């Protein structure tokens, strides 16, 4: 036993980890007190080490850095997002309602993973971002408690996110966060391919929308037998109102143009939902004045009896728009929707063909992405097209057209199920248009002043029965976003996924890879075990 291995004085028996080793036998003179003192000393050291551990971890949690090593910088937030979320003054809670069902060609589980990864980045950059996940199946009680605590409003569905800040909220559907190419296989099967992931743009825009001080106000015009905002019956617009409030974070109000001659000053968007009574010249003047000062108008028009025109045509002509009264008939089997017609005055054989899916979505940002399962459905629609001789400062863009086989029946007394040449207007027929008018002066930030309007030839788009039957309102919501210039609150380049697919691999090559990974490598380990065992025996 060397001197360096002798235990030091009892007061400092554990001179640290660097002290030389000592034999286990302790000197006889070590009494109970000395051992207790040593034990206390060691216990103190351990407590100090534990405190140091907690302290270091706590500080590292507050001050940290992240380095994204992926080639596509898949986990790096843009400067726009970082600036926004680090400057948030109020907490923003993001509630996810995921239902991962793997299999098939559905991209949803992959997108959910990507959104979750993205939310981790948001959380990581700002303590004001709180992410909560609602359990999909288990623990209903907890789910209800979370929804209640967060005061989330409106009907929720799986695979949505609710972005909430104070009393404002916005609902994001998972489909809004990506673009995909569907498999081009007529017999079904095959995998959908992710074209672009737009999660960051959508999330950042939503966070900005709910955290902004001012809330956009949408007015519904009334006084002409329009769809009533407070009405929960089939022809009311209560469900659409709820959608605007909960999903889009808009304040929704009513304006009666017969009682008030000017559009309210806080009106950001005026919706004219399926008017069925005639407008007075003063009312038209109010609408004209509102549009002329840069107003935003969304008109949803319906076919009407010849003597029941709302009389908005003079206004539409000024916008470069022509609304043709009649019923659109879509005989194309690709576009028809087999559902019973709820009402209206489509008669005879055309009744079955008056509910259909729009065929040509054009290139405008309102409609261009509404394809496949998101394509808009129309029911008893009329024609809305660009008028001849529009003013040069007005740009009219068709949004949706019917198929070439369709036709517009303007003589509603005809009973034929087929197109009657000379009487019906041959397809394709435009059903919706977007109007933009340049106004004199500056709109702020150096941008030109402009007025915007969208006219859709289908008033049922905002009605309750349409929601109950189809739950498809993307055309109207996209139109509202475009009118309010919220289509891209913040523009962030979508992330293009890296291609990690195998090139053409033969069955032999698959077998080769399987044999090496499943058999050769483990067997090599067993071989080495045998070899060392034999070596030790020898």
């Amino acid at each position: 036993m060397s001197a360096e291995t002798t235990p030091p004085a009892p007061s400092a028996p554990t001179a640290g980890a660097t002290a030389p080793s000592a034999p286990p036998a302790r000197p006889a003179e070590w009494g109970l007190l000395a051992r207790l003192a040593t034990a206390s000393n060691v216990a103190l050291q351990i407590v100090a080490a534990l405190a140091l551990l907690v302290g270091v971890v706590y500080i590292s949690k507050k001050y940290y850095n992240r380095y994204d090593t992926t080639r596509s910088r898949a986990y790096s937030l843009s400067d726009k997002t970082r600036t926004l979320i680090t400057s948030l003054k109020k907490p923003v809670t993001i509630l996810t309602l995921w239902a991962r069902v793997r299999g098939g060609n559905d991209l949803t589980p992959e997108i959910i993973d990507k959104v979750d990864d993205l939310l981790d980045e948001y959380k990581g950059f700002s303590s004001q971002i709180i992410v909560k996940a609602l359990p999909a199946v288990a623990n209903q009680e907890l789910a209800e408690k979370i929804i209640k605590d967060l005061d989330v409003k409106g009907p929720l569905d799986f695979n949505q996110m609710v972005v909430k800040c104070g009393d404002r909220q916005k609902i994001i559907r998972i489909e809004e966060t990506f673009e995909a190419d569907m498999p081009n296989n007529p017999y079904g099967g095959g995998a959908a391919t992710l074209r672009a992931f737009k999660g960051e743009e959508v999330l950042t825009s939503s966070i900005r929308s709910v955290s902004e001080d001012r809330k956009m106000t949408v007015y519904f015009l009334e006084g002409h037998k329009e769809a009533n905002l407070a009405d929960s019956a089939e022809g009311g617009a209560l469900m659409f109102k709820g959608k605007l409030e909960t999903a889009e974070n808009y304040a929704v109000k009513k304006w009666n143009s017969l009682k008030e001659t000017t559009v309210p000053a806080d009106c950001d968007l005026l919706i004219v939902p399926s008017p069925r009574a005639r407008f007075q010249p003063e009312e038209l003047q109010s609408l004209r004045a509102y549009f002329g000062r840069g107003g935003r108008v969304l008109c949803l028009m319906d076919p009407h009896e010849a003597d029941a025109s709302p009389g908005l045509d003079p206004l539409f002509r000024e916008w470069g728009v022509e609304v043709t009264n009649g019923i659109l008939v879509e005989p194309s089997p690709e576009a028809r929707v087999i559902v019973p017609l709820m009402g209206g005055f489509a008669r005879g054989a055309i009744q079955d063909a008056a509910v259909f899916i729009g065929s040509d979505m054009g290139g405008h940002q309102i409609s261009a992405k509404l394809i496949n399962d998101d394509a808009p459905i129309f029911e008893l629609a009329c024609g809305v097209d660009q008028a001849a001789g529009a003013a040069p400062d007005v740009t009219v863009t068709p949004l949706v057209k019917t198929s070439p086989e369709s036709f517009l029946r303007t003589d509603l007394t005809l009973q034929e199920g087929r197109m009657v040449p000379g009487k019906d207007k041959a397809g394709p027929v435009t059903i919706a248009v977007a109007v933009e008018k340049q106004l004199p002066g500056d709109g702020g930030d150096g941008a030109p002043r402009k007025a915007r309007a969208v006219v859709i030839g289908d008033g049922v788009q905002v009605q309750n029965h349409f929601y109950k039957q189809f739950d498809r309102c993307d055309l109207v919501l996209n139109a509202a976003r475009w009118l309010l210039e919220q289509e891209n609150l913040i523009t962030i380049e979508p992330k293009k996924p890296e291609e990690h697919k195998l090139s053409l691999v033969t069955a032999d090559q698959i077998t080769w890879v399987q044999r090496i990974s499943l058999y050769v490598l483990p067997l090599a380990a067993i071989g080495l075990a045998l070899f060392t065992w034999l070596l030790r025996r020898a």
Partner: protein
Amino acid sequence: MKLLTLTRRELGAYFLHPMAYIVLAPVLFFSGGLFADAFARASLNGYPIEMRHFIDIFNFLGMFVAPLMTMRLLAEEKKSGTFEMLVTAPVTDTGIVLSKYFAAVILWIFFLVPSLFYLFALNKFGANPDYGAAVCNYVGLVLLVGTFLAIGIFFSSTAANQIVAGILSFITLFFFYLLGLFQIESKWAGVDWAEVAKYASLFNRYQNFQKGVYDTRDVIYFLSLIAFFLFLTVKMIESRRWR
């Protein structure tokens, strides 16, 4: 220098013993099975295939392998009596612990080497693997299982029986695994303990590495835990002087 010599001695003990290879074989079988399955499905269905999709199994396997690798390190030496010889050698207790720890980590890195074949296969068949993210995955696996090994060595120093040491370390690692699954909202003294539990979960701290992201919080958490458990191990060895 002494540390290097001791580490080499420990490595020799590992590599010249069939046990290391017996543990390695199932690790390769399970990881190989997962890769073979992912590879076949990606080939036949056109699904994308990335390293992170199948390398995760190593963190789960590490939970079983680390106790097996460490349980005999000190417990067996105490049982067989070689521990006394070791501690009377002119090396510090810290040197003893570090050499055993480094040897175990090097053995784990050796366990990971065959998985480079998966990377090679992905590259050969055009899956365009992201090497930056793959390296990050491996670094994460070394830190994660390195923490498992530090915990394992600590329990090996506490128990005289290697089986007991192995079981204790596995229970502790399983506890860290369960922490990540903590769902119940539990606020007490102004702290959301569910969040604390999730943060403390070793497996949750590995997730950024899995994606290809180095986060200083994760690195510091792993290194702090490794240092803490190695410190406890040194204290355990030292305690034989005064107990």
